[in-house]
Structure formats: structure tokens, C-alpha cells
């Protein structure tokens, strides 16, 4: 700078300004181009995105993907994005027309994404779903076409601490009444009888749905007598002190921590917690299906887990991506994945095998047959209703609101 100022014939540095302008232009271009991914590019290298940012899934999924990539003869670029940024990121990529070739998305989000037209129809691409649980196939469908397919699924069941039960001379509960009395008996400060997640978003709704659906309620009518019955059960559990008031702030991971720490004798949780629970050697626990209102009923749990989708790009890339999905659904690959990550294989035979070989998984496998995809009743309207239901749960548990009033309000909010 000083040298330039000493030249009197050039009082203002034109080259400098040009550079500044160029830099600003480059910034703008960069701002416009941040979403650019790989659409339309080389068919030999595919992009992949998922939200598995915790062990063991975050190391094990890339390994299986790489194995499938080698089989198909392509390279796969992995990207792991935190859960809460996953959908925004995917939408941003959608607007730049550069959806990843392979994305592992949460199944209730599938309908929304399929509705964009940005996903490849896997049924048209010739992917067969025979031998898979029909409920799992339904979770990946939009308007009769399969857009997403899960190599494995999960659900919810009741975990119980064997030592606490033996000490109290109790058997794991099978009905709501037993659940209430057992939870009350097992409550001894600082230990609560039962822990579940009633956090104010989809996670809380997901935990409530086994009770909601098993009672016979329907997401189209949130304030039915059956729904009120289910919410009253939860309110009674918190009201009697058998479950902590903090359930409205606990995520499923927090619930698991409480159970691990011995602060809860029972918990509602999924099979993905098994690796962590098994790592704690002095914890003796069992898993039974979610208790039902009357002994004759069958539990109806929501299907959890993610589905593989293929984003539109060009024919050659799409074909390769579909090949990778086929490989991921293969018997060995899905079995390895299910085993390490704590999932139930979508393949009915493989699941049956798992139930006999792994007693911890038996309750989950048993429930899959009667499980329901969350979007079956409502399709793309699901997220809004899920939020309304989560609000109702919270205002009943934390706001002292009557379950019936809370659910009527939710029903009118869902219609708005």
C-alpha cells in the first residue's frame, strides 16, 4: 500500500478496486453455488447422506456401504449430518437439484420427500419387496409406488430391570393395570417405576403411539375416547409419582441414561439402545412387548427406523445407486447391519431367525407383525398432527390439563 500511494499519477488504485469487485462477485457466486452436489456427474462416484452420528452405527454403516460399493464397482462419498440438520440440508439440496444419490431418511419424512418428485421410484427401477414385512414396505410408499426401503426397522418395547423385579417379587407387566401397579410398587426414591420420553416433538409422539394405537385410537381423530384413555394412563403414571415429571424434557437417549443409572425400573425404548445397555455388565434387564389395555389385545407399535432412497440425477447414476440399495438389502448385509445397530431385519425370515437366536430381540420381532407405519393414516399431513399430539401430551403431563380437553384442543389445532 505505501508504495502505491507514493505514485502521484494513480491517486486511486484501479487494480485494487477491480480485485475487490472480483472478490465480491466470487463471494456471490459461491453463495449461489453452495448446494451444488453431484447431479448429472460421473456415474462411478455416488454421494450418500445419513444422520448416524453416534457409535456403533456411524462406523459400521460406512463399512457396509463401502462393501456394497465395491460389489457394484462404484465409489461412495459419505456424509453424516446431525439429526436436526438433516432435513433442512436435504431440502436445500433439493432446491439446488442435487439430492444425494443415496440418502437414509427417517421413514415419516419419506412421504414429504417423495411428494417433491425428486426421488427415484424404486418399484419402477425393478426392486422387489417380496419376503419383507408388508408394514415395512408400506412405510416406504407414496401413492402406490415404493420410494424408500428399509433394510431393517425398529420399534418400541418395555425394558425392565430384572434385579428390581426379583427384589419386589414381581413379574413384568402385560396389561396397563399391571403396568400401573408395578410402576407404583417399584418407585423408591431416587428410583422411579417407569421412564418414557414425552418430549414435545415427533420423538414424544412416537413413544406415545404404542399406547394410543393399542387402545384403538386413530390419528384422524385425536380426541376419541380411546385416545383419552391412553393419555390418562400416562397422566396417572406421572401424577402418582410412578414416573418423573421430567419425562416431558427427556429424549429417548435421556430415558436410556435414567434406566442405565438405575433411576428407573422400567422404560419404553427401542432396540438401538441394546449395544449401550449390554455394555453395562452389572445391569440385568429383560425386554417384553408394550403392555396392552386388556390381556386379549395385541400391541400396535409405530415402525421406526430409516429408509434408503435414491435421488434423481441421470440414468447411469440412478441405475448404480439402485444396485447399491439392492446390495444393502441383501441377506448378509442387512443381517450384519441389523445385528450391530440393533435393528430388526425387514426380511421376515431373517427376522424370525433373529428372534430365536437373540432373546433380547424377541419382543421387538413379535411386535413388528402388528406394527404400523406412522404415515399410513395421514400421508403428508403427518408432521402437523404429530406436533398437535405432542402438545396435548405435554399440556396434560406438565400443565395439569385434563386429557380430554388437551386432546380436543389438539384435534382442532390439527385441523387448522
Amino acid at each position, binding site marked *: 500500500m505505501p508504495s502505491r500511494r507514493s505514485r502521484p499519477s494513480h491517486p*486511486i488504485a*484501479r487494480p485494487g478496486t477491480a480485485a475487490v469487485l472480483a472478490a*465480491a462477485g466470487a463471494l456471490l457466486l459461491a*453463495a449461489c453455488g453452495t448446494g451444488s452436489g453431484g447431479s448429472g456427474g460421473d456415474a462411478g462416484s455416488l454421494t450418500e447422506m445419513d444422520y448416524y452420528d453416534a457409535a456403533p452405527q456411524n462406523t459400521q454403516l460406512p463399512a457396509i456401504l463401502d462393501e456394497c460399493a465395491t460389489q457394484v464397482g462404484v465409489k461412495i462419498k459419505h456424509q453424516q449430518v446431525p439429526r436436526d440438520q438433516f432435513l433442512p440440508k436435504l431440502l436445500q439440496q433439493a432446491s439446488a437439484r442435487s439430492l444425494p444419490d443415496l440418502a437414509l431418511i427417517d421413514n415419516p419424512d419419506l412421504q414429504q420427500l417423495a411428494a417433491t418428485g425428486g426421488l427415484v421410484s424404486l418399484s419402477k427401477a425393478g426392486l422387489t419387496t417380496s419376503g419383507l414385512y408388508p408394514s415395512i414396505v408400506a412405510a416406504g410408499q407414496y401413492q402406490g409406488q415404493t420410494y424408500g426401503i428399509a433394510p431393517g426397522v425398529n420399534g418400541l418395547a418395555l425394558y425392565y430391570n430384572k434385579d428390581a423385579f426379583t427384589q419386589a417379587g414381581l413379574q413384568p407387566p402385560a396389561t396397563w393395570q399391571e403396568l400401573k401397579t408395578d410402576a407404583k410398587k417399584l418407585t423408591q426414591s431416587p428410583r422411579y417405576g417407569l421412564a418414557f420420553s414425552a418430549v*414435545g416433538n415427533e420423538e414424544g409422539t412416537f413413544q406415545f403411539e404404542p399406547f394410543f394405537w393399542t387402545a384403538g385410537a386413530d390419528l384422524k381423530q385425536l380426541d376419541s375416547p380411546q385416545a383419552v384413555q391412553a393419555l390418562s394412563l400416562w397422566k396417572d403414571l406421572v401424577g402418582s409419582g410412578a414416573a418423573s415429571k421430567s419425562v416431558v424434557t427427556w429424549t429417548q437417549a435421556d430415558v436410556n441414561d435414567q434406566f442405565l443409572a438405575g433411576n428407573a425400573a422400567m422404560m419404553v425404548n427401542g432396540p438401538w439402545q441394546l449395544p449401550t445397555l449390554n455394555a453395562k455388565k452389572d445391569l440385568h434387564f429383560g425386554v417384553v412387548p408394550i403392555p396392552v389395555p386388556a390381556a386379549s389385545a395385541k400391541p400396535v407399535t409405530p415402525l421406526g427406523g430409516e429408509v434408503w432412497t435414491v435421488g434423481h440425477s441421470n440414468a447411469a447414476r440412478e441405475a448404480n445407486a439402485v444396485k447399491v440399495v439392492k446390495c444393502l438389502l441383501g441377506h448378509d448385509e442387512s443381517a450384519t447391519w441389523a445385528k450391530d445397530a440393533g435393528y430388526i431385519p425387514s426380511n421376515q425370515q431373517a427376522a424370525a431367525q433373529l428372534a430365536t437366536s437373540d432373546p433380547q430381540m424377541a419382543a421387538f420381532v413379535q411386535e413388528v407383525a402388528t406394527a404400523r407405519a406412522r404415515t399410513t393414516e395421514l400421508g403428508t399431513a403427518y408432521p402437523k398432527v404429530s406436533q398437535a399430539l405432542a402438545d396435548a401430551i405435554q399440556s396434560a403431563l*406438565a*400443565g395439569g390439563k385434563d386429557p380430554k380437553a388437551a386432546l380436543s*384442543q389438539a384435534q382442532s*389445532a390439527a385441523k387448522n
Partner: protein
Amino acid sequence: MSTTAARAALRPAGRTDGSPQAGPTGNHRRHRARWAAVAFVVPAWLYVAGFYLYPLAGSIRMGFQNYTVSSFYTGVAPYVGWANYTAVLHDSHFGRTVLNTALFTAGSLVFQFAIGLALAVFFNRRFPLGGPLRSLLLVPWLLPLVVSGTAWRWILDTDSGVLNHVLLQLHLASHPIPWLASTHDSLIAVTLVNIWVGIPFNMVILYGGLQAIPGELYEAAALDGANAWHRFRHITLPLLRPVTAVVLTLGLIYTIKVFDVIMILTQGGPAGSSQTLTTFAYNLSFQQLLFGRGAAVGNLLILVAVVFAAVYLRSTREQRQAGR
């Protein structure tokens, strides 16, 4: 902001124009200087246009559209007039959310300012280890909010939180208070944490303001027999007024858009009891995927901030004119 940048950019060029020692004849020089001025202003305008105006226009447009997940891919989003705004205004959460935002903002501002001022006055006196102590008070400002927010979540936990433990031990509470788990306490809890987060900012700026007040004034007042309260009331407060205006207006704009504190502590829950306009907009857009309504709430928030920013600019301008 843009105009100040532009004016700042223009000034050196104007000076070159009038300065005697520069090159050849007047006309040519003036012409060149004008180009130079434009060249200096253009980057600022490009920046503002690209990073402020364009997204702002996008947000305003989105507020009038039925923007869905598929709109991101297809680019098709039908215009629906004021439908998003009416839907938001009739949302069962809206009234509560606005009230929460007002209470949260007012509560945070009052206590942040009062405690910040008290600490600033305290540290304005010299005493042993005053410096290190003062810098320790800045820690909340330096910590990432995710870290301090998570720590506060543990502190405020109903069953195992240290705050309830202390309150029970001291017999200040008869039963554990569900800070984050009750619709009655959650707003208080998030406001308390936000006050804690904001105290250092208030303290630092007010401390700077105190340093600028000449010491002789206090000495003279003391000689005239004014006691400590009188000196504070009649010297400190009036002379601190310009700084106070800055702190409160900036504080207001910061507080009204607070997002992470609430998101980490309660996610706006339970049942929307600690929801403010920011978490409401996030919830609409990214939980319920109603992007048009989310944008509508965001635009309302921008409107509120613009109104207060205008009030602030007006008051500082009047002050500057009065000062001349």
C-alpha cells in the same frame, strides 16, 4: 448500515478532490474521483444486496406463498395472499407465544441491565484481584451456548439438578421444583439462564461507559457533600445515558431473537410454555414443515426488530444533534 459504509467510503475520495497537492486539472480529476467513489461503494452494495436484501426479499415472498417440501424441488409455490399470516394469528399457540416473547425479553433486559450495571459500578473501584475477577465474569460470554445450555439443563433438572438440591437443603422449597418440566416454571427458567448469558455484555459496555466519566466530577460532588446515592443518581446515571441507550436497544434486538438458549433447555416446551417467536418459527418450518407460516412468523419478528432499530437510530441522532 449500508449508508454509513457508503459515506465512509466516499469521504477519502472527497478529500483527494479538494487537496492541493494532487495531479493535473480539475475536471479530469473530479471525473476520476467520482468513478473511484462508485468503485468503493459498489462492493458494499453488492455485499448488502447478496447477503441481506436477497434473503430478506425471499423471506417476505415466502410468507405469501404456500411453500411445501415439494416447492424446494419443483420451485412451484402458489401465492396465497395473507393466508399464512391469518393462519399464524389464529394458531392456538400464537397468543401465548407473543406474551412469552414479551415477558422473556422484558425480564431478561431489566435484570441483565440492573445486574450488569451493579457489577460495572462495583468493578469501577480499584481493589485487589479486581482485574482477574472481572475477566472471570466474562466466561459466560466466551463459552459456546451449547455447552453452558447443557450445563444449565443439568443444574435445573427436577430430580437430580443441583439447584433443587440446594433449595431443598436450605428449606427454601418444600418439594423439587420442575423448572423445565412444568408449564408454569419453564419460562422463568429459560429467562433466568438468558439473564446469566447477557450479564457480561451489559457489564462490559457499561464499564466502558463508566471509565469515560471524569473522576473530578465525583470529587467535586463529594466536596459539595453529595452522598454515594446522590452521586450515582445525578452523575453516573445521566452521563451513562447514551451508553444505556445502546446497551438496551442492542440487548432488545439480541434478546428478541434468542433461539439456542430456549432450544437447548426446553425446545419451547412443555406444551409451548416457553415458546418464543423464534422457536415458533423454527417449529413451524422444520417440525411441521409449514415453511410459509414459518416465514410469516420470521417476518413479524423482523418487523418488530426494525421498529426498535428505527427508534434507536432516531434517538441517537437526536442525541448527536443535541450534543452539537
